[in-house]
Structure formats: C-alpha cells, structure tokens
C-alpha cells in the first residue's frame, strides 16, 4: 500500500470536470414504448440500416429476379454455353461487354442481340435467373430451418427451464449428447440417408440447430422464473403453461430474434457445404451453395460463373450480420456477442 500521507497534492493535479461550469439540467423524456425505443436505437446504427436495406433489396430480387430475363432456372440453350457477362449500356464503356480472353465471344458466335447479364453457365443457362432463383431457395431453406429451430428450441428450453429438477436434468443431458455430435458430420450423414430435396436439407439443418435456441430460452427462464411478476401470476392461480407462454415468452423474444438472425447466415453456409460434398439441392434446382460449387468446377477457366453467386452470398452474409448486430444493440445494449 502506498502511504497516503507521502503524497503531496498540487493545484494542477486536478481539473474541473466541467470546465464551463454549466448547470446540469434534467432532461424530460417522453415515455416511449419498448418497440419505439428499439426502433430509435436501430435507426441510429448506420451499418444496421444499410444491412437492412441490402437484405430488403436481395429479397425483392429473389422474388422478381428469376422472371426478368425470360429464361427459367432450368431452360437450356446449349449454343449459349459459357458466355461471359454482357450488359446493355455498360458494354459501351468496355465493362461487361462479353469479352473472354480478349475476344468478344458474342460477336464471334453471332449473338449480337443476346445479353446475359451475369453470363451463362456451362449448359447455357442464364446465370442471372439462376442466381436469384438460388438466393430464393437458400433463403427459404435458411429461414424455414431457423423458424423450426426457434419453435423446437424455445419449447424445449422453456419446458426444461421452467420445470427444473429431474425433467431439466434429463432434457439437458439429451441436449448435451446431441450437441456432442459435430454438426457437419451429422448433416452429411443425414444428407445421405434422406431423399434428396429441400425438406431433407431443412431437417438436417435443424437437427442440431435448435440446441442453441433452447439454451438461451432455458437460461432466460431460469433468470425470470424467480422474479416477482411470475410469482404474482402463480399466486393468482395461473397454470404452468399459461405462465410459460404468456409471461415468460414475450420477455425472451428479443433474444430469440437476435439469435435467429445470427443463425440464418449459418444455415446458408451449411447448405453451401452440403452442396460442395454433393448433397445439396437436387438438380437442376439452384441454391447459392450449389451455384458456387457448380461454378467452382470451372473457376480457373470461367471465373464469372461463380462470381455473381459469391457476391450475392457475401452481401447477404454481410448485411445479415450487420443487421443482427444492430438489432442486438437495439434490443439490449448490454448484451454482447453470443
């Protein structure tokens, strides 16, 4: 311990906290609802807003994009195989004018009036249509998987946490054991056992995905169930399930939404992995993952085949992450990375 009496204080050791000596005036705040609070927090976060805008744009493109060019995701024009991107107007500036290794292959093959905005794949399918179709499928897979995760995980976590004791013990051990199986291993094996299709991929994604959700739900219940308002409900004679779903559920909703926002990119990524090991969506259907792994096969020769899908995927991941970060800060500024 430094001896206090040894220290000499001088004048310049201290400065005024508020140089201007302004008066501290209490501000009066309007009462605002929780939702309004969240909204005003969120809107202040530039990154999150940008993320939200990009997500909305991508979702819109996923809905209308596949219908813009007159091609369908599976229509093949074999003569147009492997054409590079060519976009009207931009081509006048030397951008996306359909050149490949210095030669304009559109002109060479006599397709003067044909435009493939993102190019064509090795079979002569329009990549623009396939990318947006793929975005749609990827989003459907990820969102559905996460919704199921939320439902299963929340019910499991709520029941486990609320009843506690033996029930909790057994349910937690089961979850722990399931959690012990590496996701990719189980997803890969399930991909083999189940018939090929979107439903199977969703099932494979959710088989381990719900555990994270259930943990959060359980932790929150444990925290909440000792609080007064629950006790109040109990004394008023509310049934267990009424308490769980009416009193506790609304209180953990924010956290669950944030968690799910982080889970969606994960699901999209796992689907991409499945596509790479050949267990993705069935041909000729497209998903972002299957497009990337298809394009990957000619990456050193026709990099454009993979580029557009990668850019959309990266944008989607970036904006989902930004959005989720913003949402987390808005819902609960104290909460940190999960």
């Amino acid at each position, binding site marked *: 311990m430094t001896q206090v009496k040894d220290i000499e204080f001088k004048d310049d050791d201290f400065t005024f906290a508020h140089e201007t000596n302004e008066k501290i005036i209490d501000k009066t705040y309007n009462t605002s609802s929780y939702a309004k609070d969240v909204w005003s927090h969120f809107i202040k976060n530039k990154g999150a807003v940008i993320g939200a805008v990009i997500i909305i744009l991508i979702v819109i493109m996923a809905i209308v994009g596949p219908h813009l060019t007159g091609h369908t995701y599976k229509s093949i024009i*074999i003569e147009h195989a492997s054409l590079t991107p060519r976009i009207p107007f931009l081509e006048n500036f030397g951008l996306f004018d359909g050149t490949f290794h210095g030669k304009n292959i559109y002109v060479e093959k006599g397709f003067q009036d044909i435009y493939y905005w993102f190019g064509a794949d090795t079979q002569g399918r329009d990549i623009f249509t396939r990318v947006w179709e793929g975005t749609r499928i990827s989003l459907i897979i990820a969102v559905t998987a996460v919704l199921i995760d939320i439902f299963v995980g929340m019910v499991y976590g709520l029941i486990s946490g609320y009843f506690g004791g033996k029930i909790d013990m057994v349910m937690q051990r089961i979850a722990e054991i399931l959690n012990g199986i590496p996701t990719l291993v189980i997803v890969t094996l399930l991909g083999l056992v189940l018939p*090929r299709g979107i439903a199977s991929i969703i099932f494979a994604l959710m088989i381990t995905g719900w555990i994270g959700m259930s943990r959060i739900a359980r932790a929150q219940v444990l925290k909440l169930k000792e609080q007064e308002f629950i006790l109040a409900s109990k004394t008023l004679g509310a049934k267990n399930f009424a308490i769980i779903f009416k009193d506790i559920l609304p209180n953990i909703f924010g956290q669950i939404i944030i968690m799910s926002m982080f889970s969606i990119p994960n699901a999209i990524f796992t689907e991409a992995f499945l596509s790479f090991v050949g267990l993705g969506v069935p*041909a000729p259907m497209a998903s972002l993952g299957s497009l990337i792994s298809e394009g990957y*096969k000619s*990456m050193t020769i*026709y990099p454009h085949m993979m580029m557009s899908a990668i850019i959309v995927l990266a944008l989607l991941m970036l904006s989902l992450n930004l959005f989720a970060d913003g949402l987390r800060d808005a819902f609960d500024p104290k909460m940190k990375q999960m």
Partner: protein
Amino acid sequence: MKKLKLLIVSTLVFALVAGCSSKPATNGGTEGGNTDGTGNSKVVVATDTDLSTMDHHLATDGTSFIAQTLVFSGLTELDENNMPIPEIAESWDINEDGTVYTFHLADAKWSNGTPVTANDFVYGWQRLIDQATASEYAFILSTITLKNADAVAAGELPLEELGVKALDDKTLEVTLDAPCDFLLGLLAFPSFFPLNQEYYEAQGDQYAKTPQNMIYNGPYLMTAWTPGNSYAFTKNNDYFKADTIDVNDIDFKFIQDTQSAMLEYQSGNLDVVKLSGEMVDAYKDQEGFTNRLQGYLWYLSLNFDIPELQNQNLRKAMMYAVDRETIANNVLKDGSVAADGIIPIELATGPDGKEYRATAGKITEYDPAKAKEYYEKAKADLGKDVTIDLLFEDTEAGKSVAEYIQNNLETNCPGMTVTLNSKPKKTRLQMMQNGEYQVALHRWGPDYADPQTYLDLFLVGASNNYGKYESQAYQDLVLEATQGESAKDSQARWDLLVQAEKVLVGDDAGVIPVYQNGGAMMITPAVEGIEFHSAGVDSYRHMTRK
C-alpha cells in the same frame, strides 16, 4: 495469470517456429517428370481415384488394374490395337473345337528369384473363384466358360476340379465348355494374373498391403505407396523383357480436384492429367490434348413395370427426343460419341471383317417432330400427360447429361414432365436392382469384345435386365444366335445379332442408347505410347519419354 502468460509465449514461439520452417519451396520442377543426364526418365501421372488394392483378385477399379498391369504380367497382353500378343505365354496351341488351350510359358521370374510356373496360374485362378476370397471378379471365369467354373464358384465342386491344369512347370492347360473367341484378349486382364502360392501363404493377411509384401513378375516394381497421396514404380531389371522398357520411374499422384491437378500440370510437375467438362474447352487446342474412347455405353434403362413405359409410343417419343450428338459434343465435350445403337463402336469385328457398327448402322435418331408426334399418340393412349422420374449418378457428367435429357424431353414432348433424381452410384444400382426406378441413366462396359455382352442384358431372366424388358421376337433372335443352329455359323450368328439390336432399339425402343463415353487428357508431348484400351485395362508399360 502465470499460466496465461505461458500460454501466450508458447503460442508465439510455436508460431515462429512454424513460420521459419515454412520457407518457400524451391520452385517445382525438380519433382516433375524430366530426363536427367543418365537417360533415366520419369513420368508423373495424376489419378483422380486412389489406388484401392494391389491384390489383383480383389481389385474392381481401373486405377488398381492399371497399377497391377505395371507390376504383374499375365499370359498375354494387349497391343495398341487391342489384339492379344504373347507375354508370359510365349506360344499356345488350341484344339480343333476351340475348347482346350495349351500355353507354353516363357522363362520369367518373380522378383524374389523364383521362376513363374504354370502352377502360379492355377493357384491364381483357383484363388479367384474360391468362395473364401469372395472376389468381385470371380464371374469372369464363367464368362470364358471355363470348365466347372459355375460349380466351383457355387462351392459344389472342389477348387481342383476347375478347368485349369499345370501339365508341367512351363505348360498350362485351360479347358473350356464352349469355344470362346475373346479368351486370349481377356487373359491380359489382371484377374487372370498368376499368384505364387508359397509367397502368398507366407505373407498371410499382409499380402499386397505394402510394396514389401509383394513379389512382381512384370516390367515394374512398386517402390512406395502412401494411401491417399501417392504411389510409385521403378523399372524391374529382372523382368524377362526388361530391355523393352523405356521409362525408369513412374509416379502416381492421387489428386481429386481436376483443377489443382491441371495447375500442377501447367507448372510442369505432372505429365498425365485427366480433364473434366469445361477444362476441355480451354485446353483442346493445346499440344498434348488427347481424346480417348472408352468402352462404356450409357443408356436410359426403362422400367417396364411402370405402366406408362409399357406404352411403345411414349418410348419412341423419348427415343426421338434425345439429342445425342449435342450431348456428346456440347455437353460432355470429352471425346464421347453419340450412341447409334446399344452396341458401342470399336467393340467387335464381324466374320466379314467389318466393324459391327458399320454393319448395323445408325439405329437411333434425333427428330423433334417425330418425338412430338409419338408423344401426342402416347398421350392419346394414356389419356394424360406423362411424368417421368429420371435416376442418375451424382457425378459431374451424370448431372449435366441428365439435366440436358430433362430439357430435351420436356421441350420435344410438350406436356411431359421429367423429375431428376440423383444418387451415388452404389445407391443407384441398388435401386435399379430392386426395380425402384422409372428411367435410369445406366452404363454397361463390355466383358468381352462381342455384341453378345450387351444383347444378353435384355434377355428375360438375365440378372442385369433390371427394367424387365420382355420381347418374344428379341428373345428368339438372340437365343437362336447364341444357342441355336446359327451359333455354329459365324456369319448367320452375326446377322441375327444385328437384327436383334434393331428389334430392341429401333422397333421396340426397349432401351434408349445415349452415348459412348470418352475421356479427355493432357499428356506432356514428350511422353508417348500410353495405350488406351476401350475394352481392357489402359497400359503404361510401353510408354516412352523423349
């Protein structure tokens, strides 16, 4: 907190060490195939499937067979034109009705010094068919109609009753139930290679697991084998025709990814690389680009248990709707050719000296107008539009072809719906065996160089007739050709086979041939003489390097 400090420090040290040892490699080249001053040459080959086994009775895949033909020699081998030439057997006599072959063996040695004797062949063939070995290629002895092969395979007769005998150390007698024109060519196949009983039994279950647990009688010795990575061979100076071997060392590298393999080739570290799909486009004009034709014929197998497929109009519509030329030239681009019938080209030559397909001509046809016409008829017959499920293998080629066929059928038969169903090969086969499919993209590689190897598939009761095709006319033609009076008259038999194919493919559309598959490769221009056999194992034995 001390622990933590320790952790950080040790992490840093580890990282530094790792960093130091990861100095850039002195630029490639040293490893790649090139000729050094002494005339020793080396060829490095990329393989996209790993070497599965060096035990030639257990092998089932091309990669293993290629490695085995390098280190083992059989009675015969194939020359560049697919014709059998003497190898361990310097000469042979055939009795009058073509059922007894007597082989006279050359003075060859195993790499441990023991001579290669007729008994090694007898033992090898007995082990091949022995139930204890459970070889997946045991059937091949029945294919050549070796005496008692079926009974021995079923365990009804002892191994010694098999129709192969050592008359003395250097004379081998093979007795067949029926004449077999393709026997000599088939003897070049690794399943028929010899095995030294004494050595094999001394090794026990370690036999052929490492290069040290094998003895060799072929042009090369195996020197290294790292499963999952690489294996290597060097010239066998004790090989009885050692002077005919040019290349000293052959290395095989297992590279699953064709793009990284191609990067290695371009860096000069590899000499032989397989190309896939799009890479063909990019490299087809470069020196070293090689196309080869394989014996496999891919066709749509139709399941006749499905009511819609019993309708001949629908089958014909599908036959006309498939654009085979485009599939071969624009979708696959790897040297595959459109299938004109169910018998591939370059498979067999008739008694008149003409190649089979030249005689049989083109049976399949792409005609969208006819496809539409037949589909309308089929629709009238069935009273509704048709939905068909197409089963295919989840390989890159399988997927592209299936997607294109789907497009063909849906475009050329307006109203038809095709769903695609991809499965790993083994699953696909199992589903076909169980009849759990509608239409499947299936292949068949010839067992021997005769149209019969394909036509037998569609006989009633044939185990490979997965779709249960049944036609009296076809049955009569094929059985007359193979077992009837005509079997003894080569020309009459040939004509019947041609007719049978016309019935099966043309009249009935009982099967829809698609393409005969090829393979595109890049081979360093300095390397020559790799022999590709469409019905047999590719040979790197006579390769030369300039």
